[in-house]
Each structure stands twice: as structure tokens, then as C-alpha cells.
């Protein structure tokens, strides 16, 4: 594990590590980069990921996973973070599709997975958790943020971070070995209930309003719109 007090982003650091490992033909063990502040954290499609002090930002880096395991990682990683947060005594955490962690409808953590399939398959799992403070969310949704400090009476940044990092690392290691149990937990802890009205915003800005009708076997979102079911493989649930 590599710890940075402040960094451009743990994902950028992970990419540099991967480039170096490839150029020098090094077999890189599974690695975790951790930071207390990011200058250029990013979310989906390069959007700014607010990364102020008071948050825990980490990237888990692994090589050689097969494609089906990589495809399960958005779910496996969300289950891993959910388990770690629950270990702090937070028992009301839920998962907003596909993998934001909410408590009482407020966002506590977010995830983003990157993969590169090639001669060696690389994957990085980026995780941001609000520890001491809850930043303002600017993704166009109505979601507000919450922090560990808002929810857990005892402890501090370091003690919470130590527990979260340890459990997330253990859970990810177990999850890529046998994803099924983690994927089942991901489904179990989903925030959405069948029939819930929701709006899904696509990457092109288009919005679809309908009723949640469950998930496909791959975990994609099924939405009934005017009596017709549509499946979304990506998008933001904004309401």
C-alpha cells in the first residue's frame, strides 16, 4: 500500500505505475494507493470528483483478472465498501445503482472502475469516502452528501480510515476470487424497490423517466417507460 497525503489523483498515480510496470515488464502485485486529498480527482467521463481534505481517496490496482471478473467489479467493489462502512457501526447504508453508497438517502461514498483489456488486463478501482466532511455534490442530481463523522460518534479520521482500508482490501481480494457472493450482497443492499419512480440521465444528457423493474443478470437497470421496458447499462439515477 502506498499512502499520499496529497496527490493529483490516485487513479493518475495508478496509471503511471501501470505504465512503468509495462515498460519494465514488471509483474506488479495487487497494490493500493491511498490519499487524503486529490487535486484532480475525477468521476465518470472525466467529471470533477470533489476531493477536499477530510475525505479518503484510494485506488486498488490489479493485473491479470479475467474479463468476467472485471465486469463484476462495479458490484463487487460496492459490496466491499458497504461491508467496510457497516463495520464502523453504520447499519443503514444502501447502494444507489450502480454503486454510490448512500446513508439515509445521502451520498457517503462513490466508486469508479477503469479497465484496460490487452496482453495483460489491468484494472483500477477508485473509491472516495467522505470521512470528516461532506462535500457539495455537483453532478446535477438532487443527492446531498454525508460523512462518517456525521454518523459515527466515536473515532477520528485515522482510526476510521485504517478500518475502511483494511476491510476494503480484504473484501476486494475475496471478491475477485469468487464474485458471486459479493454480487448477491450488492443486489441485497440496493436502494431501489420494484415500482419506484426514477429518472435516468444518459451520458448525452437525455433523460428517461420510468418505474424500476429490477435488474438484468448482468446488473443492468430495467426501467418501464410508458409500459415498455428499457434496459440501461449506464447512466445516472438522478431522482
Amino acid at each position: 500500500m502506498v499512502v499520499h497525503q496529497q496527490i493529483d489523483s490516485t487513479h493518475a498515480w495508478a496509471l503511471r505505475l501501470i505504465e512503468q510496470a509495462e515498460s519494465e515488464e514488471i509483474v506488479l502485485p495487487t497494490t493500493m494507493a491511498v490519499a487524503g486529498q486529490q487535486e484532480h480527482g475525477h468521476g465518470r467521463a472525466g467529471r470533477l470528483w470533489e476531493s477536499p481534505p477530510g475525505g479518503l481517496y484510494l485506488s486498488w490496482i490489479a493485473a491479470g483478472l479475467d474479463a468476467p471478473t472485471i465486469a463484476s467489479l462495479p458490484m463487487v467493489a460496492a459490496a466491499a465498501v458497504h461491508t467496510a462502512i457497516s463495520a464502523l457501526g453504520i447499519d443503514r447504508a444502501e447502494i444507489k445503482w450502480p454503486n454510490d453508497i448512500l446513508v439515509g438517502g445521502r451520498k457517503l461514498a462513490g466508486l469508479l472502475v477503469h479497465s484496460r483489456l490487452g496482453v495483460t488486463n489491468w484494472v483500477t478501482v477508485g473509491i472516495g469516502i467522505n470521512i470528516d466532511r461532506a462535500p457539495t455534490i455537483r453532478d446535477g442530481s438532487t443527492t446531498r452528501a454525508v460523512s462518517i463523522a456525521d454518523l459515527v460518534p466515536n473515532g477520528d479520521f485515522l482510526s476510521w480510515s485504517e478500518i475502511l482500508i483494511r476491510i476494503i482490501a480484504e473484501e476486494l481480494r475475496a471478491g475477485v476470487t469468487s464474485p458471486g457472493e459479493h454480487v448477491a450482497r450488492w443486489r441485497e443492499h440496493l436502494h431501489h424497490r420494484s415500482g419506484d419512480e426514477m429518472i435516468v440521465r444518459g451520458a448525452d444528457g437525455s433523460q428517461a423517466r420510468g418505474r424500476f423493474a429490477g435488474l438484468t443478470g448482468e446488473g443492468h437497470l430495467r426501467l418501464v417507460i410508458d409500459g415498455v421496458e428499457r434496459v440501461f447499462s449506464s447512466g445516472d439515477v438522478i431522482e
Partner: protein
Amino acid sequence: MFKFDELCELIRLVGSSNVAGFEIEHAGGRLRIEGKAPAPVVSHAQAVGQAPAAAMIEAPSMVAESDGAAPAAAAQAAADEDLHYVVSPIVGTFYRAPNPDADPYTRVGDAVNGGETLCIIEAMKLMNEIESDAAGTIVKVYPENAQPVEFGERLFAIRLS
């Protein structure tokens, strides 16, 4: 005299075989059909009843089509043989650039190497970098940025180098 459908059948048989041609006398008439690569094209009106020999006539329109289209079709086929298509390995959303403010990974006319990142396909906040599996020049980008793509859908055409 041959009936029309009998004549057609004879022409079809010669055309589909490797027989160079044949000549037959029948019911007071004589018919000769010559096969000619790639296939005999015969005007039956001229072939029937013309003694001593019914010449095999190539239909002008067919010749004209063949002369005009064959080189173009052949050139197109040869061009297509040089094209390699990169298809989407998953269902997801297609991104041409790593972020909205960045330049696209690649544009039409760019030379790419095998292993070079061409785009990102996102599914469930898994950003999959899609690498080129061939070296050459990008000649077409099929999806628009931020559009959904299906499994197996064409993303790029690459003219192989």
C-alpha cells in the same frame, strides 16, 4: 425444335458446368451452345433454328455491366479486404475521449498501432479502455460520442498497414 423451357434448361446446364459447349441436331433444327468463361449468355432467339450454326451471343447489356462493374467491384472487394473492424466487446456507452474537454483518442486519418487505446466503453461506471487489435489507419468512426453501443457493434474501421 426445342421448347423455350428446354432451351433455358440446356443453357443453364452449360452455364453451370465446365463443358466448353455442345452442338445438337433435333427436330430438323441444329443448336450449338458454347460455354465461355465465366458463363455463357445466350440469346435463344438467335440460337434456335439458325443453321448451320447458331452463334452464341453475349448480351450487350451484360457485357457492359460486367465491363463497368467488375473492376470497381473488384477494387472495392480488395479495399474491403484491407479493412479491419474494431467491434464493441460489451454493451455500454461509447466515449471517444477520456473526458469531455480532452481530444479524442483517435480521429479519422490517424495512424494507430496495435494496443493503442481507441475509445472507452462504459457500463455500470466501469470505464473499459478499448485497444486497437490491429495496426493501420482509422478510416471510419461509427458511433457518436456518448451514445449507447451494443455487443459486437462496429466502432472503428481500420485500413491495415
